[in-house]
């Protein structure tokens, strides 16, 4: 069986394999991960569906160009460790990507099998492989290139920074990560909830970098404790800025500063990073609404809504100004949220928040919307319907309408050009900023995007930095 090739073998039709998962009524009672993942049998069954295309489209769909047919073939052959190594050639965080990549828009979207049938479950296979490797407990520490004597500072420990750090330490450079929060991982630890991405997985990746020799300085807010220029003066030969898009946006409507109105960042940070869902065992409190409204319909909103349910809400509503087709969240997340009982109020937007004498939110006034002509995002612009105002009771509101660029570091870094929305201007190909010796990548350049795109940006910047450090390039665009 192990030698048997998937290639060329006549396939009986096997349906796309589902992962076993917690039942909705059980999982809203806990913060454990929802899917259990594939068993080795299911993984091999799913791997067998891959056509091993000569011109595999799936690879083009993956921002880091994983050799998808190759790792799937290894799974099919039962060589799970081989598959894990194959994955790691291109993707240093497969356990994370397998869970949170919007596969339906990337590798799986273009999978050739998907034309007539459902696409191969690339993400689930990736997740299976990485989990299997981790469960073996023998993560291989690769050989590092001889020391180059060059020092690299990485600001921010999200997927962009982690990827870059991993690449450069292997190339023999000395790498230090500076992270503002007390824990490393960026959105992976403070934003995405435990039930979607267990924090132990992120910690394992960070520990791996530490084992490789990356120095990690958490609790270091660059721009305050040290500026970027001071890092250069201290002898860092190259600096990468992977700051993320960590500025919460608000609606700017009356009453928005009432108690019980959170930005999604605050709500999720309290719950995930500070473990408020374990209060009072952990000291950080979080308001447990009974009747919760979440504004916005992206992944962040789904995460907030599902967190609210797990914290004991009776009713959780998502209020979104456009319609279902425009919702930016992953299909799987919307599906999970609906299964768990989250209600969707579409074509609706709040105009005002109301509160009681203690300053606690009691409700929102909303207005109904209709869709007009497409706007600059290509989506049809929502227009308020006059006279359609109505009010909605709630005791907790989570504002999840998007994020911006935090100005803290940019304003203390002369010579760093920003675009008009405050994001750092960097070369699309190699991540070079307008400041010599400084690269940037991930959400701080593109605006809120995805884990895999941030990782891709980290990889490209790492390659460019390595060139610069080794060839002593002195010109700067």
């Amino acid at each position: 069986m192990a030698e048997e090739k998937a290639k060329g073998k006549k396939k009986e039709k096997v349906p796309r394999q589902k992962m076993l998962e917690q039942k909705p009524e059980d999982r809203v009672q806990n913060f454990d991960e929802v899917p259990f993942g594939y068993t080795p049998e299911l993984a091999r069954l799913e791997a067998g569906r891959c056509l091993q295309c000569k011109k595999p489209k799936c690879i083009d769909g993956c921002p880091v160009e994983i050799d998808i047919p190759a790792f799937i073939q290894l799974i099919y052959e039962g060589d799970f460790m081989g598959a894990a190594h194959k994955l790691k050639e291109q993707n240093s965080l497969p356990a994370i990507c397998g869970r949170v990549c919007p596969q339906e828009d990337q590798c799986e979207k273009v999978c050739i099998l998907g034309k007539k049938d459902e696409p191969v479950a690339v993400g689930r296979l990736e997740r299976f492989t990485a989990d299997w490797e981790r469960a073996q407990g023998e993560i291989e520490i690769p050989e590092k290139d001889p020391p180059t004597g060059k020092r690299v500072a990485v600001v921010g420990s999200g997927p962009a920074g982690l990827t870059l750090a991993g690449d450069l330490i292997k190339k023999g450079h000395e790498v230090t990560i500076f992270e503002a929060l007390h824990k490393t991982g960026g959105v992976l630890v403070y934003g995405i909830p435990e039930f979607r991405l267990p924090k132990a997985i992120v910690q394992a990746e960070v520990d791996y970098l530490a084992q490789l020799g990356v120095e990690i300085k958490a609790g270091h807010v660059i721009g305050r404790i040290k500026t970027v220029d001071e890092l250069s003066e201290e002898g860092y030969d190259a600096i990468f800025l992977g700051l993320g898009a960590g500025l919460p946006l608000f609606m700017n409507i009356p009453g928005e500063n009432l108690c019980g109105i959170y930005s999604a960042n605050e709500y999720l940070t309290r719950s995930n990073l500070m473990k408020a869902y374990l209060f009072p065992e952990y000291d950080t409190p979080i308001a447990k609404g009974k009747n919760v409204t979440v504004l916005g319909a992206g992944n962040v909103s789904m995460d907030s809504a599902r967190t609210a349910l797990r914290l004991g809400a009776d009713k959780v509503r998502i209020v979104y100004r456009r319609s279902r087709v425009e919702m930016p969240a992953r299909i799987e997340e919307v599906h999970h949220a609906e299964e768990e009982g989250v209600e969707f109020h579409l074509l609706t937007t709040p105009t005002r928040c109301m509160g009681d004498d203690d300053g606690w939110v009691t409700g929102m006034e909303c207005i109904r919307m209709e869709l007009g002509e497409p706007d600059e995002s290509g989506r049809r612009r929502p227009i308020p319907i006059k006279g359609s105002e109505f009010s909605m009771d709630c005791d907790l509101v989570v504002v999840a309408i998007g994020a911006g660029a935090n100005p803290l570091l940019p304003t203390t870094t002369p010579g760093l050009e920003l675009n008009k929305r405050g994001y750092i201007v960097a070369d699309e190909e190699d991540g070079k900023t307008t400041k010599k010796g400084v690269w940037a990548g991930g959400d701080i350049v593109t605006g809120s995007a995805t884990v895999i795109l941030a990782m891709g940006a980290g990889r490209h910047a790492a390659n460019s930095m390595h060139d610069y450090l080794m060839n002593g390039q002195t010109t700067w665009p």
Partner: protein
Amino acid sequence: MFRILEKREMAERTVCEFKIEVPDIAKKAQPGQFVVIRANETGERIPLTMAGTDPEAGTINIIFQVVGKTTGLLRSFEEGDEISDIIGPLGVPTHVEKLGTVMCVGGGTGVAVMYPITKAYKEAGNHVIAIIGARTKDLLILEEEMKAASHDLRVTTDDGSYGHHGFVTDVLKQILDGGDDVKLVVAIGPVPMMKFVCKMTKEYDVKTVVSLNPIMVDATGMCGACRVSVAGKTRFCCVEGPEFDGHQVDFEELVKRQRAYLTEEKVSLDRFMGQIPE
């Protein structure tokens, strides 16, 4: 991990001062800036102002009032113990310039926050009149230090056990009426105190700076927990403050937001008290 080098208890053990070894922060910190402390692995992140720094020795001083679980836990730490995380320096430093006569008004533990700022105004060549107040004599802190940091120190106690019997605003009014050409008032203390000081200085049309203390989480501008309304606009206190023009601050909103977790804070404190032998 950051080691506590010295511990001093003040004001009948309701206030405590630590000297902590944090060389990088000590080197960089300026008056008006604060740190975020997470005492241990299960701990909350709380902001505390640096009441002093010694860049050479690599130490900072913090002075905190014991008001709940985290400050209670911190007080239980002894010299030699270590704190998990200290993050800083945070916030915009006090903008200190030579103006003429400056009044520094501190109430309660606000005096600790006031102390380095007072010193900085004096060093910048201003004539500094300081007023510090407390409920009662035994709760008064940093009297000697404030005396040295100013040209003229006035003390008030609510119960008259020491200094002027009454509030800091009484003495402030005397001085403003006295015809001194006061260019700036800096007021730091409990919200009601800052509110009354601002109400008064507004009548006299004297610019007043206050240091706000909303609830914070990350203190890097990422969460918006610390939002305050100033001149009708929402501002993030941790990165745009903590100091703002007192005449523009919505103190009502601040007080309400500070009280958002009273129930949880009580649960936390009761649980903590149940765990310590005393």
